């Protein structure tokens, strides 16, 4: 995982399999980093994520609540088709904004 803070935007780049074990290792670090900067916009980038399950949904919802508590916004970026499928089941897209690099470049996949 990479955490990049630039101009009030805090980006987390996740990679590989975001399963229960991985998230249990990541969770406290992400919580702490979000609290440290309290950026108005936090982005979760899923470009290199190859697997996610209900653990990931729980993690995203909990961070959404954490960021919402200080009136920040959580944006999901580069959601791959597989990640999109899992997140869609949970209805996450009804409350969170999704941005894709390729959509911004005008290329629809």
């Amino acid at each position, binding site marked *: 995982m990479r955490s990049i803070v630039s101009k009030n935007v805090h980006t987390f780049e996740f990679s590989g*399999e975001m*399963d*229960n*074990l991985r998230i249990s290792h990541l969770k406290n670090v992400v919580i702490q980093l979000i609290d440290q900067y309290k950026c108005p916009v936090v982005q979760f980038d899923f470009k290199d994520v190859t697997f996610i399950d*209900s653990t990931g949904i*729980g993690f995203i919802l909990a961070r959404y609540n954490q960021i919402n508590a200080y009136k920040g916004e959580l944006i999901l970026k580069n959601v791959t088709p597989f990640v999109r499928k899992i997140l869609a089941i*949970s209805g996450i897209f009804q409350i969170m904004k999704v941005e894709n690099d390729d959509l911004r470049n005008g290329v629809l996949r």
Partner: protein
Amino acid sequence: MNQMTLIFDAKSENESFARTSGIAFLMPWNLSVEMMMEIKTVLAEGIVNAILHGYQNRQEGKIKLEMSVDDQQLLTIMIEDHGVGIDDVVLAMTPMYTTRQDLERSGMGFTIMDTFLDALEVHSKKGEGCRIIGRKQLKTYG
């Protein structure tokens, strides 16, 4: 008919071993990437349920994973633990219902399994462990 059984410790570090082994068993059927990802997710959800709910995240106990494919290419997955069991199976299968909010669980595990399977059965009684049976028609790709 082809069948396999895997018994492993209910440790989080075995989650990826078990779901990947389950997928490896299905390699001869040359499934689409999409179908493999769906089955991998079903396995992940069932195994995490056994570790976190069944064995209450104590990182001990045994999980049994059985997979079989019959002559009509119907896949049957069985995931069994001997943990605390589920008081109310119907309630447990309700989307967003979780007993472990403290662990930031989404309560979507059974819903995801149900979405990706053709049929899902959960057999459990309090104190008697849990047995999840899932069925999915395989479609060979290409």
